[in-house]
C-alpha cells in the first residue's frame, strides 16, 4: 500500500452528499461526552515496554457516532480500554461525562469482534446480564425482573431475534451471536457504546445487515458510539466522524466529518462521493503505515 491511491477528488476532505440536510457532527456542540487530552500509554515494564499511544487527543460529542481507523497495531483497541476505564493512561487525562476516568466507567456498553457470550446461558439470559451487575439495576434485580425482561425481549426483537430467546449461543450463527452481544451491550441503556471490530469476523452480507441494525439502534436511542474498525467502508457508512490513527505509537493524524444524510442506505455506499471519502481515508492510512515500514 502506498499513496498511489490518491484519487483526483481525494483532496476534498469534507464531501457533502446532501448538504441541505446536514447531520450534526462533532464540532461546535455542547460539552463533549469523551474528552481525551494528551494521553500516552505504555505497556509492559522497563526494557520490554511498548509505547502504545502518544500525545493522543480526541473529542467525541454526546450522541455522536465516531469511528477510529488506523493501521493494525496502532493502539485502536487500547484506546477503547482507556475510554472504558479498563486501563489508565501513563500520562494525560481521559474524561468521560465530565468525570476523569480512573476506574471502569459505569455508563458504557462494550462489544467485541468475538461475541464473548456466556455459552451456558440462553440468549435472553445473556442479554439480561447487565441488570445483574450494573447498579442501580442490580439492587432491584428481583423487583424489576419483569421490566428488565421486557426490555431485553424488546431489544432482541428489534434486531430480529424474537424467536431465539431461549436458544443457546452455540445454536446460533456468528451474525446472530453478534446481535445478541450488541443487545447485551445496550440493554441497560448506556450513554456510551464502545465497539471493537464487532463485524469483522462475519461474512459480507451479515456484516452489511448488522451495519443497518447498529445504525437503526443508534438512530432510535441516540447513544454515543465509538467504533474501532479497519473497514473504511464501515467507518464512512456508519460514522459522523472518522478519526485516522498513526502507526504505533498511535495518535489522531486526521479527522474527517462525514456529512451523509441519515438514515443511510446501502445505495449511499455506491455514490462517487462515498467512494472518494473511502479513498481519501485509505491514502491517509497508507501514509501512516509508510511511516514505520
Amino acid at each position: 500500500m502506498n499513496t498511489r491511491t490518491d484519487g483526483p477528488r481525494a483532496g476534498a476532505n469534507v464531501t457533502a452528499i446532501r448538504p441541505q440536510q446536514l447531520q450534526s457532527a462533532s464540532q461546535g456542540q455542547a460539552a463533549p461526552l469523551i474528552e481525551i487530552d494528551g494521553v500516552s500509554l505504555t505497556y509492559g515494564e522497563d526494557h520490554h515496554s511498548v509505547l502504545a499511544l502518544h500525545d493522543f487527543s480526541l473529542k467525541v460529542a454526546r450522541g455522536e457516532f465516531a469511528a477510529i481507523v488506523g493501521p493494525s497495531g496502532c493502539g485502536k483497541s487500547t484506546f477503547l480500554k482507556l475510554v472504558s476505564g479498563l486501563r489508565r493512561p501513563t500520562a494525560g487525562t481521559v474524561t468521560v461525562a465530565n468525570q476523569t476516568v480512573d476506574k471502569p466507567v459505569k455508563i458504557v456498553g462494550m462489544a467485541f469482534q468475538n461475541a464473548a457470550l456466556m455459552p451456558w446461558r440462553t440468549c435472553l439470559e445473556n442479554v439480561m446480564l447487565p441488570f445483574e451487575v450494573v447498579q442501580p439495576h442490580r439492587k432491584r434485580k428481583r423487583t424489576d425482573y419483569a421490566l428488565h425482561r421486557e426490555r431485553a425481549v424488546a431489544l432482541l426483537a428489534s434486531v430480529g431475534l424474537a424467536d431465539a430467546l431461549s436458544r443457546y449461543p452455540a445454536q446460533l450463527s456468528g451474525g446472530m451471536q453478534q446481535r445478541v452481544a450488541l443487545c447485551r451491550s445496550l440493554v441497560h441503556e448506556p450513554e456510551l457504546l464502545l465497539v471493537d471490530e464487532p463485524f469483522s469476523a462475519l461474512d459480507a452480507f451479515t456484516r452489511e445487515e448488522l451495519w443497518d441494525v447498529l445504525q437503526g439502534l443508534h438512530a432510535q436511542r441516540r447513544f454515543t458510539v465509538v467504533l474501532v474498525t479497519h473497514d473504511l467502508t464501515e467507518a464512512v457508512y456508519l460514522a459522523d466522524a472518522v478519526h485516522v490513527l498513526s502507526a504505533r505509537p498511535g495518535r489522531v493524524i486526521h479527522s474527517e466529518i462525514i456529512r451523509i444524510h441519515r438514515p443511510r442506505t446501502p445505495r449511499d455506499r455506491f455514490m462517487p462521493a462515498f467512494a472518494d471519502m473511502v479513498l481519501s481515508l485509505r491514502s491517509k492510512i497508507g501514509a501512516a503505515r509508510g511511516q514505520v515500514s
Partner: protein
Amino acid sequence: MIQARLRSFIEPAVTALLFFALWELMCRVFQIPEFVLPTPSRTVAALVKDWNLIWPNAQQTLITTMIGFCISVVFGMALGILVGSSAFLNRCLSPLLVAFNSVPKVAVVPVLVLWFGIGTVPAVLTAFVLSFFPITVNVAAGVAATDRELIDVLRSLGASQWDVIVKAGIPRSLPYFFASLKIAITLAFVGSVIAETVASNNGIGYLMLSASASFKIPLVFASLLFIGFLGVSMYAVTAFLETRLTSWNAHTADQANFAIGG
C-alpha cells in the same frame, strides 16, 4: 438417537462379557490353579457365598471413599478457583501443588497412621489426598479459560472480581470440574483401599489382605470384582451429573474436555 445410546451401552457390555468368557476359558484350558487365578464363575460364587463378609466391608470402604471424595470436591474446587482466578496465587501455589502431587501417596499412609492411628481417619485422608489434585488443576484451568473479552465486558459494567468469578469463572470451569470428578472418584477408591490394606481392621482393602493371607484367593478376587463394580457405579453417577449439569457444553462442539490425572 435412541439407537446410538443403546449401542453405546450394548457394545461395552458385550466386550466385558467376552472378556469374562475368555478369562473363564483360559483358566479351564490351561488348568490354572485356583490359588493363582480363580475362574470368573468361582469368583462370583465366592461373592455370593461370602456376601455377609464382603458387604459390610464394602460399605465401610464406600463410606470412607465418599467422605474423602466430598472433602476433595470442596477443598479442590475452592483451591482451584483461587489458583485459576489469581495469577499471583497461581505463581505461588503451582510449583507446590506439582511437587505435592509427585510424592507417591502410598508413602504418605504410614505418616497418617502415625498421626491418626489405625482405622477410618487415615483411609479418608488418603482418599482425599489422592483425589483433590485433579479437581484443583482442572477447576483452575477452567476458571483461567474464561474469555478475556467477557471479563472486560463484566468489568466495564462495574463487576467486582468476585462477580467475575461467580458469573463467568465458575460456570466456565464446570465442564472441567465434572471431567475431573470422574478421575477423582476412582482415585478416591484407590486411596481408601490402599490405606485399608496398610492400616485398618475393616474395609475391602483389609478383607483382601486377610483373605490372601489365608489363601482364600476366590474371596480376594470376589472383593476385587465388587470394588471394581462400586468404582464403575460411582463413575457412572458423576458422568450422569456431568451431562445433566453442563448440557450447554455439549453444544459447544469445539470445546474439548480436559481432564488431567493425578
